[in-house]
């Protein structure tokens, strides 16, 4: 069974990697977007799914990564790779400086504090000259979608491999222990503060890299789109829809929801947003534990699965 799953995964990655050779330009475009969203969902999975902290600040990392690339390329005329590193440095610095105080907060308070941080970043960057204030920065265009696609795919594989690796090492176990019972983890010797900050930073690294790739690809960046909170909500929805705290759930969730959303925006264009909202509401009600849980338990429970969920969570 394990071998089968590994083979399937390798095949899936190989097929995905081959898309630019047989797929249309639009499919590649859609792919870049879906892959980057999957990276974001996977990045969020580290802090939200494994560590249990509902971060609304991951769009800050994404924005810092975008601005790292944009500032380096536009203002300093440095190569893309240097910009990516700069973005990651910004994100990690942010994770340590603000993670320390903010990660002491629990539950909704943490969520709201990170939400506010994203707002503050929009407001601050709108006033920073080197970041183009609220007008934004225009990057030099690079007409090479297959490259962006493969970069995104590599990043997603790296993020997923990292998460898989986390599940088999002490650090990952510590994060799960924090999620399950933080006080309990502390008295068993888990350095909760350090672990949380590290998880926040790690999750930030992937988000920042995704932001960097996206900025160079879309060639335009302004504070509202870089620190977009609805992007953060999207990554949470995707991770939660797929199954938070699982290795493949967030990726699956990102692919499925990106597909649904893309079909909606091209087929029922004027009501796409409405349907997306309805899908979210219905999904939360009937499968609050995500696709991964659905797949695991649907085999045994069948359609009763949905009724069981309802019964378990209502009052």
């Amino acid at each position, binding site marked *: 069974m394990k071998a089968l799953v590994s083979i399937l995964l390798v095949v899936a990655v190989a097929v995905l990697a081959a898309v630019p050779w047989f797929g249309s330009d639009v499919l590649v475009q859609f792919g870049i977007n879906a892959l980057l969203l999957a990276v974001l969902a996977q990045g969020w999975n580290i802090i939200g799914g494994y560590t249990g902290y509902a971060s609304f600040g991951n769009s800050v990392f994404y924005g810092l990564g975008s601005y790292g690339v944009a500032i380096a390329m536009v203002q300093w005329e440095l190569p893309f790779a240097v910009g990516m590193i700069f973005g990651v440095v910004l994100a990690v610095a942010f994770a340590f400086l603000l993670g320390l105080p903010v990660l002491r907060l629990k539950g909704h308070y943490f969520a709201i504090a990170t939400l506010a941080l994203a707002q503050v970043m929009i407001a601050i960057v709108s006033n920073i000259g080197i970041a183009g204030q609220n007008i934004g920065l225009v990057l030099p265009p690079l007409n090479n979608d297959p490259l962006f696609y493969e970069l995104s795919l590599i990043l997603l594989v790296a993020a997923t491999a990292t998460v898989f690796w986390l599940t088999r090492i002490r650090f990952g*176990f510590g994060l799960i222990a924090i*999620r399950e*019972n933080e*006080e*309990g*983890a502390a*008295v068993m*010797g888990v350095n909760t503060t350090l672990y949380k900050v590290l998880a926040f930073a790690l999750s930030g690294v992937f988000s920042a890299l995704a932001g960097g790739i996206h900025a160079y690809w879309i060639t335009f960046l302004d504070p509202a789109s870089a620190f977009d909170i609805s992007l953060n909500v999207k990554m949470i929805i995707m991770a939660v829809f797929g199954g938070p705290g699982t290795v493949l759930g967030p990726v699956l969730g990102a692919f499925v929801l990106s597909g649904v959303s893309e079909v909606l925006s091209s087929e029922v264009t004027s009501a796409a947003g409405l349907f997306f909202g309805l899908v979210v509401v219905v999904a939360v009600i009937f499968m609050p534990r995500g696709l991964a849980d659905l797949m695991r338990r649907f085999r045994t429970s069948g359609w009763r699965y949905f009724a069981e969920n309802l019964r378990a969570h209502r009052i």
Partner: protein
Amino acid sequence: MNAILEITPILEITNVTRRFAGLVAVNDVSFTLKQGEILGVIGPNGAGKTTLVSLISGTLPPTLGDIAFEGHSIVKLPAYQRARLGIGRTFQIMRPFPGLSVLDNVAVGALFGHGGGESELAKAREQAREQLRFVGLEKFSDQRADELGGPSRKRLELAKALAMQPKVLLCDEVMAGLNHVEIDEVIDVLKRVRERGISILVIEHVIKAIKSLSDRLLVLHHGEKIADGEPDTVLSNPQVVEAYLGRKRA
């Protein structure tokens, strides 16, 4: 027994006070726990027993006073560092890692506990399995922790703490809610723990259970220490009787 009592105390609590917004939960309490000793702490509900455990394990900072472990003050150390020095605790309100299997719950202790723990997952799970065998939970290894019944959870708490390879074990009401047979089993487990050289501080509400287990008893009442000594002497102390029986005394 006397020989053991002479050695330097493993845990020394000096004039510790903890206040919560006007309420004094623990008031100027001092005592020692000696190497290899089993010290019972009793007292009525609200006497400050659980607070005391939290102060020692580091989940609560004391308002005043000092706590020393093996002669060094640990009062400024965070909980995880105290755990790594060798202080293990169980929780009265049992809070396992609900989503993890019973085995992995215990493995967390082996991975992080005393001295920083075992870094390899496989070895940690091996150690965890041993602890489960020790407390008699082996057959539940693969179940989710939140699917365990009450009595089994008490044992899980013990196994988790033991997997940390602690030098001191703080047990917060591990016998509450158990029947006679189960209490006897736990007493047996704790005695075997002590045979490994681990010092134990047992907090208990039920006097009978603790009397046979403890080398020494300490009584808390309204956050203050009102007695400390041989179990029989302490239990016949009129102040203790009053505290426990309260109004019924008349």
